[in-house]
Each structure stands twice: as structure tokens, then as C-alpha cells.
């Protein structure tokens, strides 16, 4: 048999050879540094001198007893609302509205909606910082122009509003992505289902609940994982807009890692935070995958 031709049941090692270059790059530049970080988390190292002392789980104990860590983590969880729940909700709503009927110029809108995903987070942060500027930012100018000047305030400097303001930027970035994902997924749902439901007298809400959402299970799973990871690892947006301020109002774990490692020379401690964050993300991703797999074959 000529092994160079593909046929069902062919040995998978052959395919592995094609994967090897990519796998090697991943292992060297992503996986290896992750292992190094985990290794660093067990050391007492300020990031400069060659001497590193093994201190076991002392860094982890310090992390779990640090009130700033729990505060930062709570802010990450609040960001899940802005990065994940609201965009998925908006995405589902808009997809169910538009997915059934072909729109003129839809490709154009799809590109436009996906654009925030392509832009650098730093660029987005700088632009939104300007939008939120209390004196000449477009948001306050608009509020004053329509007579709502009592609502115009220093958004990014307000202790209560800074976190939702930064969260709103996250929503802006993610909702287009969710919507495009769900619209693509809706193409796969057979229209006969909707016709059958209409014949049975289903209203729009029932269609959404019994046909659209179950049919989009895979896409919702992808959206959940991607957006939750984005919410938990957010750093650049906070760094560019508020740097964790005012006070600690927008402090997130990613910023805590940066500050500890590079500004306060506590690299071991920062590595511990990073490792804990990675484990949390892994756990959540596994949970979501389990939820997906559980119903993957139950409806088809």
C-alpha cells in the first residue's frame, strides 16, 4: 500500500509530522514559558539577581491572604458580566432578529461588527479614554447637547462608575464577535424547524428558546469560553485607561501580575498569581466543554 495517499484509517503519526513545526513553536514559545512561570511561582525571586530560593507554597499562601488579590478577582468576575453575559445576550437577540432574513450589504456589516476584535486593545483603550474625557470627550459633549448634562461626569475617575465604564468597552469589543458567531451558526439550523414551529403556533420567544438556542449550543460554548477568558485575563485595556485606578476600583489580576513582577520586583509572587489565574481559566473552560458535550448529540 502506498502510505502517501490518504485513506480512512490511515495512521495518525503521518499527520503528526505536519503538525510538528506548529507544535514545536507552540511548545517553545508558549508552553515552555508557562512551565517556567509555574516554576518561578515556587521561588523567592525579585526578577534580577541569579539567586532564587525555593520556598514551596509560600507565595500561594501570600496570594490567598492578600485582600488585593481577592478584590482584583472580584473585578474580573464583574468583567465576565460585561465581556461575556451582555455580549452573548445582545448577540443572540440580534442574531435571532436578523438571522432568518437575508440583509442587503450583510457582508459589509459583518466585517464592521467584527472590527473591534481585530483592533489592538491598546488602540481601543486610548480611543475610549478620549471618548470618556470629561471636558472634551464625545460622550459628555453628547450628554450636554441633549440636555442631560447632570449625567456628564468623569467616568474613568469615578469610584463607582470606572469599572462599569471599562466593562462597557469590553462589551463593545465582544458583542460583534458573538453576533457574527451566532449568525453563522444559524445558517446550520434547518428552516424546516422554524416552519414546523410556526405551524404549531410558536411565538418568537418560544422559537428562540426551543430552536435557536439549542441549535447554537456549539457556538454559545465557543463564545462563552472566548469571552470568559478575555474577562479573566484583561490587562491592556485597564493599563491604558485607568491603570487600576481610581484607588483600586478597576484593579484586575492581570494588572496585579504586571505590577508585582515589573514595578515591585516580586516576580515569584506575580508568577503565583498568574498560575492561579491559569488554573481558574482551565477549570472554567473544562466545565463549559462538559456542558457542551453533554448535549451535543441529544438534539440532532
Amino acid at each position, binding site marked *: 500500500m502506498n502510505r502517501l495517499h490518504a485513506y480512512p484509517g490511515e495512521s495518525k503519526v503521518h499527520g503528526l509530522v505536519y503538525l510538528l513545526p506548529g507544535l514545536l513553536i507552540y511548545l517553545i514559545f508558549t508552553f515552555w514559558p508557562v512551565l517556567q512561570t509555574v*516554576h518561578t511561582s515556587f521561588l523567592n525571586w525579585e526578577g534580577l539577581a541569579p*539567586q532564587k530560593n525555593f520556598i514551596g507554597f509560600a507565595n500561594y499562601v501570600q496570594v490567598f491572604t492578600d485582600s488585593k488579590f481577592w478584590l482584583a478577582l472580584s473585578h474580573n468576575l464583574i468583567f465576565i458580566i460585561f465581556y461575556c453575559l451582555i455580549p452573548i445576550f445582545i448577540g443572540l437577540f440580534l442574531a435571532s432578529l436578523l438571522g432568518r432574513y437575508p440583509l442587503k450589504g450583510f457582508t459589509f456589516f459583518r466585517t464592521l461588527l467584527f472590527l473591534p476584535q481585530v483592533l489592538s486593545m491598546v488602540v481601543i483603550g486610548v480611543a475610549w479614554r478620549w471618548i*470618556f474625557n*470629561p471636558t472634551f470627550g464625545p460622550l459628555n459633549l453628547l450628554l450636554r447637547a441633549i440636555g442631560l448634562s447632570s449625567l456628564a461626569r*468623569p467616568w474613568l*475617575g469615578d*469610584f463607582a462608575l470606572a469599572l462599569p465604564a471599562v466593562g462597557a468597552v469590553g462589551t463593545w469589543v465582544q458583542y460583534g464577535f458573538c453576533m457574527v458567531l451566532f449568525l453563522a451558526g444559524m445558517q446550520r439550523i434547518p428552516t424546516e424547524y422554524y416552519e414546523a414551529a410556526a405551524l404549531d403556533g410558536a411565538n418568537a420567544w418560544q422559537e428562540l428558546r426551543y430552536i435557536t438556542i439549542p441549535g447554537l449550543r456549539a457556538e454559545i460554548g465557543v463564545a462563552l469560553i472566548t469571552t470568559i477568558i478575555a474577562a479573566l485575563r484583561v490587562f491592556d485595556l485597564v493599563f491604558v485607561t485607568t*491603570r487600576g*485606578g481610581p484607588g483600586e476600583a478597576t484593579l484586575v489580576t492581570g494588572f496585579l501580575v504586571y505590577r508585582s513582577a*515589573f514595578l515591585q520586583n516580586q516576580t515569584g509572587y506575580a508568577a503565583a498569581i498568574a498560575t492561579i489565574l491559569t488554573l481558574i481559566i482551565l477549570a472554567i473552560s473544562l466545565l463549559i466543554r462538559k456542558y457542551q458535550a453533554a448535549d451535543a448529540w441529544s438534539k440532532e
Partner: protein
Amino acid sequence: MKKFALVISTILVLSMLLTACQTAPTAPTQAPAEPAKATEPAKPVEPTAAAAGPQTLIVWDQFYRDVESKVMDTLNKEFETAHPGVQIERVVKNLDDLKVTEKLALAEANGPDVAQVNQGRSDMGALVQANLLLPLNDYYTKLGWDKIVTSSIGSRNSFTTDGKTMGSGNIYGVSPTAEVVGVYYNKTLFKKNGWTVPTTFEDFMTLLATIKTAGVTPISFGTLDGWNAIHEFSAIQHLLVTPEYINNLVFGMNNVSFDTPENQQAAQLLLDIAKAGYFTDGYAGIGYDDSNKTFKAGQGAMTITGSWLASELIAGTDQEFGFFLLPGMGGKAGMAIGGVGIPFAIRQGTTKADLAAEYLSWMISPRAAQLWAEISYMPAMEVPADTKIVEGSLFADTLKAWNTVNKASLVGHYIDWATPTFYDTLVAELQKLLGGVTTPVEFTATVQKDYADFLAKQK
């Protein structure tokens, strides 16, 4: 599938084994004179004759702004001309990037020979502790730097070899520029409204009220970036404390406390100014650069920041600006925050130490002073007599202010140098104070906790 899993597991196990090879903890180094490289055997630094064959000197600096970058390029070119065969390889970054990347680069064999290293514990102190900077004491006397730099200024670039005590020990850097924090004022607006420069702090407060009544923003200010709030608070603090106290606080000597009545009074005064609406409307959401832009455009009567802003306020505006020191209580001469700019330091592992030292001399030469003065940057060294400085210009004002406090030994400190976490703590707590979340008493108490923790760790 099984084979796939087998291959993946093998790769994983191999990676783990490789990690384990690095896990063996190295014993803490004893002799501080040992170079910092862990993988190479100790290499003595060999002094090379400065003009022996073609050489490249790698220099990292943070003079990224257009006007200052041009000065560096000029100085570098003139250095190359004066030292045939020497090439300067210049890398310029902004301060944030420089701080982070040079900590890694200074430990490398092909790292920069000369780099600007921020003063303070988290940067210079940490690098000294890791034995990555070359002590410059010999060069100080050999190349005559002690005649250019006073000992009080030199102490700011000094650390003991364990990197723990600032202000004494070896000198590790030379600063080309000097800085003083004071009050910029819009001369055009002042002239139009008949306002005069105050000579006492009480007059200053009255002036703020007068300006506000006239419908102009008294002090252009924004706390979104955080760090300039430290200057706002500390400028007032410097009028209330003694030079000994500030020295003790920043250099960690004599076990002083931050929780003092003077600091509380300074915090209260800052809060009063904020509550009376003397800062820009919505200052909590405005960044430092944006605040300066609006001030430059004429939308604020004054702004309290450092002399480094002067060069930006000279060109590109139809407004005229002046500078004065924040006047002391009852007219008494107060201290001003100030010091020397970010110094140039030499990497411990460099093989071109003598050439690097000559480069440092070049950076504090009279020619350098002249070039900095010409773009209205304050040099730390004396400006040559033939440099054209326009009497009554903004730059002349800042130079006069610096000379006044320098000669009277009233140059204060950037208090965020006090501990590695002081910067972050001060920024967060000042934002809380101004945001009404904490009181002045709570403010000083929280900051003192940071300071006390640090002092305890130093013992």
C-alpha cells in the same frame, strides 16, 4: 489515537524533566563584587583604552520627546567625532518601557553599556542589589565629576552595595538634567485680569478664589494618570516639613513616620483646594497630558508640575507662560520638590567601562548644558556664560527657581522613592482622598502602614 497520546505524553514528560534540571536552587551569592551572570564564571572587568580600534557603545535613554531626542542625537554625533572609531548605538524608549526592559537587558552580556536608570529603590536600588551597576566613585574623582556635582545631588544617585540604603554608599549614576516642581502660570491671562504672582501661601489661596470668581479654572489638573497627584500633595507638604524630615523619609533613616500632623495638614489643604473647585472640572477623569494640553491652550490659570514641561509650553501656542515656586507659609522660603533627572549609569558587566565613563562625562559637559538650556531643559550642571537665555522667559524663570532652592539647600525629594510600593500606594490613596472615600487622617495612616512595613523588612 493511542500513538498520538503516547507522543504527546513523551513531549510533556521531557519538558518536565528539562524544568527539573533548572530547579536546583542556587545558594545566595556572598561576595558583592561578583558579576551577576549566573551561567558564566566570574569575569574581571578589563578597562579598555577609549580609542583602541573600532568600538560600539550601546546607550539606552528615555529622551523620546522630539526636542530632547534631537539633543541626544547631537551629543552622540559630537562624541563620535571626538572619539574616532567609536560608534554610538542608541536605543530610545519611554520611561515605562525602559524601566521594564532594562532590568532584563542589564543582566545580559550584550546588554547596554550605558543606560538611564530611574532613581529609587524599585529601579536603581534593585539593580544595585543584583550587582548590575558599576560603582562610579573612582571616575568621580578621576574625571572631575566632583567639581560639577554637589555631594547633596550626588547622594540621590547613591546606594549602599546591598541596595538597601539610599543616599549613602557608592555613586551609581550622573544626571544631565535637573528638575524642580513649582507653579506655571498663564502670563497672558494674569495680565488681562490684573492678577499678580503671590509671595505667600495665604496670598496663593486668595488668588485661587479670585481666579475662580472670574470664571477661569484656577489650577489645571487631572488625576487619571495618578502620579502627578503625588506632586500636588507633596508640593504643599514640602512647605510644612523640614529638609531633615524629607531626607529621613526618603532615605529610610531615623525611623520617621508618614503619619504626622504636617502631612495631615498638607492632605487637608489639598482636599480643601479640590472641594472649593479650584481644580479642573471633572479632574478625576483627566490624564496628565490632556490636562497640560488644555493649560497650554489657555484654559487654566496655573498648573503645578515640574520644570520638564517648560519646553512644551514655549512653542506652538499664542499664550505666554511663567513659573514661580509655590510660596511658603507666611512668606517663609519653603522647600520645593526637585532633584536631578534620570541618571546615566554603567552596566557592571561592560567591557568598555572607561569609554562608558567618558560618555558620562560628555553627558554632563558644558556643551551638554548649553544644548539642554537651548531647548529650555534645566541642566544639572552650570550653564556656560555665553548661552543665550532670554531674561524673563519661561526658561529663565525655571532656572531662577532651581538656583534659588539649590543655593539655599531647599531642594526636596520625590517621596515615591521612599519604598518600592510607595508610588502605587500614594497614587491609590491620593485618588481615594480626592474622591472623598477617605479622610486626611486615614490617608496618612494607610500610607504610613506601607512605610512601616517597608522599614520592618529592611532590618
